[in-house]
């Protein structure tokens, strides 16, 4: 028995409310959170009469997905599913952010969701939800029409001066758009991370934790065997997906290693192998998402995830060795 469910945003959240209307074909709640099915996904599936699925071990065809549950800190995943027009429920309080922020709309995305934010939907909101899907179709039709008009206009002949004027205008517009995109990324992604890293670094340096790190971790991280061990640990198949999201851990560790290099506790010629040692887990959390972006079949995703994770155990330490060899003569 399927029941429609309303998902509202939590106190620190953004977007929504989403009305999930399960049907015979479309009733799966896919949890893409790493480390099994998120309890929220189970709860939603339970309420609406659907089925909760672990997106890492089972690939689900997009047509069967009612909604996805993610725990994205705001880099990539939060925009991937809205881009595919799939309703996205983030358990973390993250607003419109990341590389795909423009696809995140309140109709498709809701964040900081907890079990208390779930509710059964009444008849009127179900009607509204059905109506809004029709609206989306209407918008597509309008865009289609606009494209046809543009195409027709482009077909008309123009004189040389107009054409030069138009192409200069187009190029200038491209430069301007590029500048706007850049500032967007700086404000939405780079500056927030700098603020976060500065705070951590400041506390570590001023509180004396820095000295502890210098005395305990640096001697290990500053040798080839030490770095091989670090990359191996990062690549262990059940650890790598946890370390991956948003590369936050790799970035923090990178900054700490950088600080130790600046202090001379880690030799500067280890900079290159260190870049690979701390990054053996890159994208391990993102395999199912990345593969489905590449339109891989569900079967491919199911075996592709372990293939990538196992491969990292070999290629992680291997990359450190290659980088170590390649850093000869550097600095």
């Amino acid at each position: 028995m399927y029941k429609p469910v309303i998902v509202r945003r939590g106190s620190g959240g953004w977007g929504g409310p989403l009305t999930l209307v399960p049907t015979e074909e479309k009733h799966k709640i896919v949890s893409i959170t790493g480390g099994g099915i998120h309890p929220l996904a189970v709860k939603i599936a339970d309420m609406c009469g659907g089925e909760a699925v672990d997106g890492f071990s089972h690939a689900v065809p997009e047509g069967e997905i009612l909604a996805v549950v993610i725990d994205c800190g705001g880099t990539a995943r939060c925009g991937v599913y809205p881009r595919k027009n799939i309703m996205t429920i983030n358990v973390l309080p993250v607003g419109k952010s990341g590389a795909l922020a423009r696809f995140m709309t309140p109709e498709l995305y809701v964040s900081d969701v907890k079990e208390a934010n779930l509710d059964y939907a009444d008849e009127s909101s179900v009607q509204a939800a059905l109506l809004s899907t029709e609206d989306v179709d209407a918008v597509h039709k309008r865009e289609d029409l606009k494209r046809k008009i543009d195409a027709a206009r482009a077909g008309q002949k123009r004189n040389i001066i107009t054409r030069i004027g138009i192409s200069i205008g187009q190029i200038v517009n491209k430069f301007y758009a590029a500048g706007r995109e850049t500032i967007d990324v700086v404000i939405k992604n780079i500056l927030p991370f700098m603020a976060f890293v500065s705070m951590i670094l400041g506390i570590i340096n001023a509180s004396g934790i820095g000295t502890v790190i210098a005395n305990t971790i640096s001697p290990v991280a500053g040798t080839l065997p030490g770095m091989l061990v670090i990359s191996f640990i990062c690549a262990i198949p059940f650890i790598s997906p946890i370390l991956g999201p948003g590369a936050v851990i790799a970035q923090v560790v990178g900054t700490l290693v950088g600080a130790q290099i600046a202090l001379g506790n880690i030799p500067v010629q280890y900079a290159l192998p260190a870049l690979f040692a701390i990054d053996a887990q890159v994208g391990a959390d993102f395999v199912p998402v990345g593969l489905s972006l590449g339109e891989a079949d569900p079967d491919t995703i199911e075996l592709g995830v372990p293939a990538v994770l196992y491969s990292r155990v070999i290629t992680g330490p291997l990359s450190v060795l290659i980088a170590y060899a390649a850093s000869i003569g550097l600095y």
Partner: protein
Amino acid sequence: METIAAVANGFMALFKAGGETFTAFVTGIIPLIIVLMTAVNSLIKIIGEERFYHVAKKATKYTLTRYTVVPVLAIIFMGSPMCFTFGQFVEEKYKPAFYDAAVSFVHPVTGLFPHANGSELFVYMGIAAGVQALGYELGELAVRYFLVGIVIIFLRGLITEKIYLYLKSRDGRRKTQEAEHV
């Protein structure tokens, strides 16, 4: 009273150090990145993604280019995470290996092309900041990171491809056995 003031001073010192780091980041890293990113973004808009598609589609056929040229160009032109959509032009059985190669390049690319992955700059920048603090130039580190990255994504592509094909053949055998039992 004096103790309270001392505690307050110590507390503020924690964040003053952070503030100084932040100023150093903003004045030292941001201006260059903004101009560089704008330049590369404009170039990509002028060249157009379609032209890149045209070249890269052909290159997915050959093992050597599938795990080197294609992912590198995909990341430079489309950035992360959109570069993974390029997997749709890769043969089904090579998709996991292609993903592995592509995703392993999202950090090596940032030394030379920070626009490609603006939200994960600090894997490289964090370490580079330390090297810079010692007075070394970053050019060589960035170039070597990029080149070693290409070697590594190629190997990763090859190895993941082999592992995936092995898992798939084993899975195939299991499925036929199950079918025979039924």
